[in-house]
């Protein structure tokens, strides 16, 4: 429910996707980070110290390579919110059995 609340708050500023995709040079990851996924608070904190992050990247350190993969990595932490009863109930209306 907390996440749903956050999602509510951030919707004030709507993204102009057409503009972001075709008329900016932002990398896909940056576009999404700006949108700030409510489900991955972890990414948000990472975005904060991005300035320092960028300078280190090219030094071919032991960092993991970004693979061309279709499935996203499932992380237990990201899906924690689904242990919450309220959260589970919040999507009931997406099923035929739920009220509207």
């Amino acid at each position: 429910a907390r996440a749903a609340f956050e999602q509510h708050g951030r919707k004030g500023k709507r993204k102009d996707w057409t503009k972001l995709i075709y008329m900016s040079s932002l990398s896909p990851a940056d576009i999404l980070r700006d949108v700030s996924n409510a489900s991955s608070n972890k990414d948000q904190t990472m975005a904060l110290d991005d300035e320092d992050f960028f300078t280190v990247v090219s030094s071919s350190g032991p960092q993991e390579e970004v693979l061309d993969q279709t499935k996203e990595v499932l992380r237990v932490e990201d899906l924690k919110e689904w242990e919450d009863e309220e959260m589970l109930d919040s999507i009931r209306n997406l099923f035929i059995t739920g009220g509207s």
Partner: protein
Amino acid sequence: MAQAGNVIQFSGHQYLRHRLVLSILSGKAVRIDKIRSDDKNPGLRDYEVSLLRLLERITNGTVIEISVTGTAILLKPGIIAGGSVTHDCPLSRSIGYFLEPVVMLAPFAKKSLHLTLRGITTDDRDLSADLIRTVTLPHLQLFGISEGLELRIKKRGSPPLGGGEVQFLCPIVKQVKTLNFVDSGRIKRIRGISHAVRVNPQFSNRMIEAARSVLNRYIPDIYLYSDVYKGEDSGKSPGYALSILAESTTGAIHCAEATSQPGVPPEDIALLASRALLEEIRRGGCVDRKHQSLALLMMVLGSEDVGRCRMGEPTARTIQFLRDVKDFFGTSFKIAPADPADETSSNLIFSAYGVGYVNANRTIA
């Protein structure tokens, strides 16, 4: 086919697959450089070379040049030939890695494709054979590609040793239908496939039970199938996975999947998959996130009419795909909020004018 000066340039190893697909479909040559040029181990990986070889085999007249260091490639596409092809996939990636781009190309071949792939059928990176069969292929049906479309899982193969085998049969089409899919409907049923090979067969049932504990609250129409493969057919390595999908009243499909990890009980794997499915359902839209690029590609290729589709927010892959589509086909999508009045909805309507792609390779029967 491609004239000089008609080469599209990219850098980096990422998004290799869809760039190759776009090149072959558009007939425009593509040059990709700086492939892991800063890496300790520079150049193409074995699976990427294997993919290039597979694409070379299902096409006719494709010229692929790889630089000495392997950090740059040039692909001049030929025609998509199809026919009967067998390919051994390296064990570094699963069959899904190879099948995903092939699914995008096969409908436009000269002859219908009959592809046999051997290797790993399920891993945690690419769509498993189960998801391709139950989710990817129905997505193609939206575009009028249906008759004779089939994926048979002959043998399963878990990482690291694989040993699986699948057969992919794809019919050819003249042109794909224009998509107009803006009503995502409501979820009416949940289906799933649970499999366990070379481990206690009870694992499969334990996963089903755990998944039900999460999903049963929503709808009664849940059928999770325990798929049993025995002996030779179960591959060379132990492993188990749960692939689940939710189908809506309008035929929108969302899917999720989790595969076995060392030291994690099957119940936890099932919970992971179930929760990932709920997450996917919440994001909404008519097309699953893992299939956004496929749907958008078919919309671009559709007849000269406006195709529309409701989707959740695009993934990073989708964003790059949209940009690359513009480079190859000159088509850009109009992306507008699906429910401008509803502040909580993040759904978007993607619309584009199809290029009217006609399968010129097709042999007239």
